[in-house]
């Protein structure tokens, strides 16, 4: 087991880790790719209202949505309220760097640790997203003009809310992120398929490093 963890990858697997790193870095380092979308359509908004969540901010029809939400006493959605935006790009860049290091040094333990930390981080972030949705749907101002039952906005998928149809869909950033994440188990599975190559590489590894 120890030998396995401290062993290193075959060049093919190392290349895949580089791929994972390359995928991770631009997504989070450059906050260009949205990680989540909320689309809202109402009879008087046939063109739809949108919220695009990025690793460091929220864009889209924030002002329009906040004005509509104030009728039901929902707290205004303000990018400054989200502490996550202040560390998410840096944290995820760090995972990219870790993957790059794993590829460079070829050490299996580094890759696995990085992958596990990444998984944990993604779970925490997803949970925090769910918590935010919960809070927006539950912390309603009791003085609001329109009094709604508290509600849970759709975490993913479709939901009808009052006169709005709401779709919650992962963005391209999340798809890329998911692909990078899947590369972890994929690499281990590929190694299992060709164990001979792995041992051989493990023996040569010190020289290679």
């Amino acid at each position, binding site marked *: 087991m120890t030998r396995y963890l401290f062993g290193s990858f075959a060049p093919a697997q190392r290349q895949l880790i580089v791929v994972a790193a390359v995928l991770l870095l631009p997504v989070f380092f450059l906050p260009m790719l949205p990680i989540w979308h909320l689309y809202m359509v109402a009879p008087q908004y046939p063109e739809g209202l949108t919220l695009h969540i990025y690793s460091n901010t929220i864009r889209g029809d*924030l*002002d329009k949505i906040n004005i509509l939400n104030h009728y039901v006493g929902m707290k205004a959605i303000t990018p400054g309220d989200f502490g996550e935006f202040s560390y998410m790009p840096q944290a995820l860049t760090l995972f990219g760097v870790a993957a790059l290091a794993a590829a460079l040094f070829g050490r299996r333990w580094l890759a696995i640790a990085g992958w596990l930390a990444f998984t944990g981080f993604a779970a925490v972030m997803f949970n925090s997203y769910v918590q935010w949705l919960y809070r927006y749907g539950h912390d309603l101002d009791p003085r609001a003009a*329109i009094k709604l039952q508290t509600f849970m906005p759709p975490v993913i998928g479709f939901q009808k809310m009052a006169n709005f149809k709401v779709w919650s869909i992962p963005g391209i950033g999340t798809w890329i992120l998911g692909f990078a994440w899947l590369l972890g188990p994929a690499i281990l599975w590929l190694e299992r398929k060709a164990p001979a190559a792995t041992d051989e590489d493990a023996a040569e590894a010190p020289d290679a490093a």
Partner: protein
Amino acid sequence: MRRWMVWSLAGALALAAIAQSQGCSQRMAGASGSAAQRVYVKPGEHDAYYAFLSGGHHGNIYVYGMPSCRHITTIPVFTPEPAVGYGVDEESKEMLKGFTWGDAHHPGLSETDGDYDGRWLFINDMPNARIARIDLKDFKTRQIFGPIPNLSAAHACPFPTPNTEYVFAASRFSAPVPLDRVVRAADYQKEFRGIIAGIKVDPQDGTMAMGFEILMPPFNYDLADAGKGPSHGWEFFTCYNSEMAYDSLELKASQNEMDYIAAVDWRAAQKAVDEGRARMIGGAPVLDPAEVKGIVYLFPVPKSPHGVDVDPSGQYVCAAGKLQAEVSVYSFEKFRAAIDAGRFDGEKMGVPVLPYETILEAKVPVGLGPLHTQFDDRGFAYTSLFLDSQIAKWKVGAPWEVVDKIDVYYSIGHLMASEGDTRHPTGEYVVALDKLSKDRYLNVGPTHPEGAQLIDLRGPKMELLYDFPTYLEPHYAQMIRAEKLKPITVYPLAENTKPHAIKRAEDARIERKGRRVDVYMLAIRTHFTPDVIRVNQGDDVYFHVTNLEQDDDIAHGFGINWSSKNMQIEPGETKTMHWKAEKVGITPFYCSNFCSALHQEMQGYLEVAPAGTPIAAIQRPDPARVAEVAAVLSAE
């Protein structure tokens, strides 16, 4: 591999052929379905053209969609429109200069290279000699130029030049120059003069400014059109009453066989002004053609002409003598040659007259009462016939023959073909703008609506598609392909630089200085902030209302009870309205433009205290309220 390539090539060709035939069949369907199909625009779909119809003595512009003939909106121009606060808020009040009436005749779209560019729409107010510019970014009147000095009744106006270098105006009712002289009408020939004015248009922002004026014989200048292509640089004006009658014009002004077209070389006129050869009269540089040669010429037109229209090539100038059954077509080339050869047939008050026969190209026997001519893209002209209540279609060029006629209902004045006065008419439609509607619509009593017909030009024969009434009284109109206009739907708040705009709840306040009170108010669904305002009797209160919405179609109104004060503020806009606190007591105000679910709650109170009651110099709304509003606004 090769076979694969051959097959895909064949497939691509087949697809292209299908696409081609689809395109063809669509165009044919447009010209061949039933009339109902050709004017039907499905719910939720848009028309292919914007049509701008002048509102005549209603003083505004009607916007229609074509081919559905649906009235989309009305743009207030020369007449106050309290519904939106036009002429009520300080800026538009200032623009109207106290006038509450105008007679708007001839909309003119701005052009680039002789084609509509969709930037501005100009329109004249004949009686008060004004020209307005409507910005087609927001369909709002942005400038009213005039009353133009020395000029009386701007009918031949504005008829922009091919690059919107100038808009023009000319006196329909000649008058003493300057206008404030004390003279008798009987001294008409001696004391009265016509004026042709060239108004410069700023190429960047469309701002109009005085260019030049030309002192003309006291005829009645009627209509105008700009030269284009080879005739670019010239503006042509018809005139009647070359008899120079000042009374009983009906008879006395209909005696001469020939009246005139005045052709103005506007570049030469501007050059003369720039060289200091004009005299300043009434604040305008006036050129006297007796002293300054080469700026204007007259050429004879039979029998009291009305319209003058230059064909798309810019080669032919068509004028219709309204008491004659022919359109006279003049060759610009021959006109130019006659000037160069100095072949003049005398002069009128210093303006050289060119001989009729030498510059005439053709006479087209169109029918009775010809008034105006428009063009298509296939070399045909369309002339309205007032007396015959018809449109005549004729070939521009030999054998100069009428090829088709269609009845209209009734007594057509102007007609408007799709982009039909540009260098590239689209040749799809013409709209007949009729002076009488008589029995065509449900009877609404003696004040009949005006009538209009949409006519399809795409087939070999003109075909009547639709009959639609309009409110008083379109004269001329313009029709432009819809895709050439890209209007905004909200005013971006970031670009609102109005000095009295407020963009944060914290800035909402009431400031007093002596008897002047400035209320800095914001409007957003669904409240005004501040909404309780304390003032003293006799105060002049200025409400500066900023609509902080950035959502389509969420306009707010601001109306004050027991007053004539109301305005509409569009998303992102700031408007200022004055209200005098005349009576002690409570006066409610409210949102007069339905905005949203809690529109009924959008209201407030003005508390008017007896004069002299102490009131703080700055009042601010309740901080808790400000915080609530600020919370909604803070996202951006």
